[in-house]
């Protein structure tokens, strides 16, 4: 028989307060559960106790009771049937709620594992766990409560699972310390901006310490969302020796008085609270009218740890884009994302506010590569990202992987495009770039482009995308090719800004295409565009001239506050780079590139390489200058006259020089050496510092290193080696417990019949062990591994 869906009686708004219940775990312990027992087991073993707690909370005034299934997405000890315990938990609550009149919230907390990049769980794995719980409870419960989240991406993933596997209202809360951040470093605003844009039925805070510390955070949250806000604090923190929470019912209720000014529509209690706490809480709030706090104006984006509020003259770094960058295209095409990460770090240090990510490498799977690039960038940068693709499938995959609120770049005014891109932005809470072109191409006139912009804004509004999340691009055409191109763009920009009140965005460098002194034109055009109302410039932030234009505009237009940013950047700006770099060993006078590498001076190495390239063939620079210098460093290290830190600073300098040479080679369409080598830290292990050192040394010697990262399963190593045609695999493991995974990986490589050598290394690996698992080489340190790699390729 088809089970009838419960009628959804939940209405969360500011008409009156809605009351959640209090702690479950604390009550279970108080009613006889032994410490250390999995709480959910009580749903099966002692349902009468669980139901008793639900019943007491309803008597205390709770409108919503929360199922005893907090751990339902967690990894549980083998042999424990969490599914049975979870369903039993849903039923306990349903039974009591039906009898006494209350709503049932399907409760799910974190998986208890860290997601990538901090941890090893993938978004897909986390999603599957949450989706499973949702499927179990979708027909039994009245709403979903996702709570106690610390990782923004995990919260987002759980939210998507709830939306995609139930028709129920979804409310979601994270747990913050008093400093306003979660343990994962997520500020309360980043949570509000990211999840609020996905439109949950309510958004809130739970757990943490007591109400007093949480109230200011609730206000901060309310100020950045336009959905209802709730709060469910602990009764203070437990004492390490007695285990008692510090706030009794009266203390808790008294502290909660202050929450009436926090913009809340729903309140309840978390760890340490009891029916007595909830009874006093509901008594204090019943009959009061909730006071919402209005969302403050502004266009906001977020990464998981950083909030971006548009302030005028903001910068999107454009360099993570393989189009027109052969070196990047080559490395991305091979799946090597090291350059992508380096560009992310570099652009951030140059002052980018947002990072554009484009993964359009011809012949490559854009969807897969874009997701990998997003993950790689987020692993090393805390800037919000701009997903740059024309493929809706690739965009959606990237939107699911993004931690934070991104911009999607882009839709056009074409009907099909609007219908594909805007629903994605609405669902995932992303801002969107709208290009002012449509089925008729790019309108020549400013009015024509304005009309397309208006069409895009109307369509966005229909999809529920707020104005502040729309960024219109009036398109820069080459001034040398089209008469009056700049004027039309600037005029359209002005119209959009004035009449539509949305944000504007522009790629700048196209203006100078085909003309001499491009840097000058780019900079002048950028200044004009900023004057016409440009909010967000998509530029190369590593070009000092452009950033000078941006920073001076900010100062002149009064958005640089007390001008501290400008002054800090440009006051007494003598070059201190040399002083920061560590010396390797005294090389004396001599050949500049060799000397710079030996001393570990990065900037000097780059300069010397440029000097050499002016008169020497790139391959000659490598063979006659770079390699000999590296060999000297390697010999010194072998002899013990050079220490590891010096080896590393030399490697860093050599790498910088190498990059310069590679750019020249790539521009000529040559690959530049680049025998592929696959390296990985094996499955189960997350220690990668040793592997990373090997990687740098291999890159120094010109290898194209495909770094699969850490916790890499054997099949992924095999796949990467096969796809790239690598003739050498390097495996690293630090722990005795993960050594077996090293053996499995070698076995898998042999099984697959790869024509490939395998070298191994890592703290606990020995020559004997390497021999016993059939490795071809044991590298006692990074230097010997690099030498072995050279010997494999006959160098």
């Amino acid at each position, binding site marked *: 028989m088809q089970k009838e869906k419960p009628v959804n009686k939940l209405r969360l708004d500011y008409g009156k307060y809605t009351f959640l219940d209090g702690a479950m775990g604390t009550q279970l312990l108080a009613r006889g559960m032994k410490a*250390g027992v999995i709480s959910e087991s009580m749903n099966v073993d002692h349902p009468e106790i669980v139901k008793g707690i639900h019943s007491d909370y309803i008597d205390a005034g709770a409108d919503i009771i929360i199922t005893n299934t907090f751990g339902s997405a967690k990894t549980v000890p083998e042999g424990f049937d969490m599914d049975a315990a979870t369903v039993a938990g849903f039923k306990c609550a349903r039974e009591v709620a039906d009898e006494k009149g209350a709503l049932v919230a399907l409760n799910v907390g974190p998986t208890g594992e860290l997601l990538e990049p901090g941890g090893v769980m993938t978004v897909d794995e986390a999603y599957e766990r949450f989706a499973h719980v949702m499927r179990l409870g979708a027909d039994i419960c009245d709403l979903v409560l996702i709570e106690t989240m610390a990782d923004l991406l995990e919260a987002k993933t759980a939210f998507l699972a709830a939306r995609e596997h139930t028709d129920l209202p979804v409310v979601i809360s994270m747990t913050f310390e008093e400093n306003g951040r979660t343990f994962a470093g997520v500020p309360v605003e980043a949570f509000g901006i990211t999840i609020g844009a996905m439109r949950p039925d309510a958004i809130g805070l739970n757990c943490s310490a007591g109400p007093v510390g949480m109230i200011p955070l609730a206000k901060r949250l309310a100020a950045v969302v336009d959905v209802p806000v709730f709060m469910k604090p602990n009764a203070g923190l437990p004492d390490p020796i007695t285990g008692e929470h510090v706030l009794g019912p009266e203390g808790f209720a008294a502290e909660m008085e202050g929450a009436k000014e926090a913009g809340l529509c729903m309140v309840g209690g978390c760890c340490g609270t009891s029916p007595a706490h909830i009874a006093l809480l509901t008594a204090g709030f019943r009959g009061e009218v909730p006071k919402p706090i209005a969302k403050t104006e502004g266009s906001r984006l977020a990464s998981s740890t950083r909030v971006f509020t548009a302030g005028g003259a903001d910068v999107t770094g454009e360099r993570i884009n393989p189009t027109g960058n052969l070196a990047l295209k080559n490395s991305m095409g091979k799946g090597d994302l090291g350059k992508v990460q380096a560009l992310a770090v570099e652009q951030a240090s140059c002052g980018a506010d947002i990072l554009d990510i484009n993964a359009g490498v011809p012949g490559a799977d854009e969807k897969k590569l874009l997701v990998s690039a997003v993950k790689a960038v987020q692993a090393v940068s805390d800037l919000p990202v701009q997903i740059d693709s024309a493929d809706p499938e690739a965009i959606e995959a990237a939107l699911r992987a993004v931690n934070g609120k991104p911009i999607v770049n882009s839709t056009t005014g074409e009907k099909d495009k609007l219908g594909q891109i805007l629903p994605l932005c609405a669902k995932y809470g992303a801002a969107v770039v709208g290009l002012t072109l449509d089925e008729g191409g790019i309108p020549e006139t400013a009015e024509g482009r304005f009309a397309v912009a208006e069409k895009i804004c109307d369509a966005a509004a229909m999809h529920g995308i707020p104005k502040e999340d729309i960024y219109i691009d009036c398109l820069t055409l080459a001034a040398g090719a089209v008469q009056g191109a700049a004027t039309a763009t600037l005029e359209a920009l002005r119209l959009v800004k004035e009449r539509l009140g949305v944000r504007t965005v522009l790629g700048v460098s196209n203006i100078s295409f085909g003309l001499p002194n491009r840097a000058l034109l780019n900079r002048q055009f950028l200044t004009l565009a900023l004057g016409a109302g440009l909010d967000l410039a998509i530029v190369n932030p590593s070009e000092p001239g452009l950033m000078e234009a941006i920073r001076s505009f900010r100062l002149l237009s009064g958005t640089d506050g007390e001008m501290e940013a400008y002054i800090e950047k440009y006051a007494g700006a003598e070059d201190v780079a040399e002083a920061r770099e560590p010396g390797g060993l005294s090389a004396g006078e001599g050949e500049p590139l060799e000397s710079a590498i030996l001393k570990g001076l990065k900037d000097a190495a780059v300069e010397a390489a440029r000097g050499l390239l002016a008169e020497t063939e790139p391959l000659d620079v490598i063979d006659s200058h770079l390699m000999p210098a590296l060999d000297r460093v390697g010999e010194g290290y072998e002899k013990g006259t050079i220490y590891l830190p010096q080896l590393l600073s030399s490697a860093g300098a050599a790498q910088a020089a190498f990059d310069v040479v590679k750019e020249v080679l790539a521009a000529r369409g040559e690959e530049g050496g680049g025998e592929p080598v696959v390296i990985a830290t094996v499955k189960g292990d997350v220690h990668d510092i040793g592997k990373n050192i090997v990687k740098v040394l291999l890159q120094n010697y010109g290898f194209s290193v495909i770094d699969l990262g850490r916790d890499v399963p054997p099949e992924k190593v095999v796949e990467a080696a096969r796809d790239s045609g690598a003739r050498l695999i390097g495996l690293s493991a630090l722990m005795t417990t993960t050594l077996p995974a090293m053996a499995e990986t070698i076995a898998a490589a042999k099984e697959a019949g790869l024509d490939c050598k395998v070298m191994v290394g890592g703290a606990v690996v020995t020559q004997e062990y390497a021999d016993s698992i059939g490795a071809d080489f044991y590298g006692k340190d990074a230097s010997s591994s690099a030498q072995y790699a050279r010997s494999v390729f006959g160098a």
Partner: protein
Amino acid sequence: MIFENKPGIDEDVFIHRLGYGDALPDEAAAKRIAGALAEVERAASPRWVYKVFEVVRSHARGHAVSLEPGGPGLAGRDIERHLEGCTGAAVFALTLGAGMDAHLRRLSAADPFDAVVADTAASELAECYADEAERLIKERLAGEGPGGSGVYLTGRYSPGYGDLDLSVQNKLVRALDGARAIGLTVTDSHIMLPRKSITAIIGVSDHPVTGARAGCESCALWEKCEKRKTGEACE
């Protein structure tokens, strides 16, 4: 819990451990190392949690002792020796936080020298906070014991030392509610994440105890330890 005191890294000891041996970095390198240390200290948001358990000796299920209530059973002769004469055990977990891991990832993408210096510094800093945690536990327990006469503590003992299997890590962290209390998790292969984290067991007794930390010879690096070759030990 947060730490009220902020212990710092001893720069001279640190440079020695970094792999310079008895040599000294030149001025530029020293400056860069000092900068890296300061950045690591800034990137840390150390948090800790501890609980005091009762030590119950019973060889049921292959355990030497178990921590009650709610703690795991501990197997192995070394931990049994360490907790000899102890009625209780304070177990703590500390982490420098996810922000530290992010900082280290960022440096890995930018420069190998900075990455290695910072990684080493972060490990060192975690040890400094472990010392601080131990001190705070000692302070807190000073008034306990029969008639408030105080208790005696052993040194720290961590999973993976001697024959105390690393797999107990997951159970220890769960017993401390580590994920909820300080954001600390443990992978299936018993590795703590965020990476720069430490757990330890400190024996508590009403009479003087010394504990017995497993020695060098039980270390996984026994065979190839560079430090041992020079005649040094970790402590």
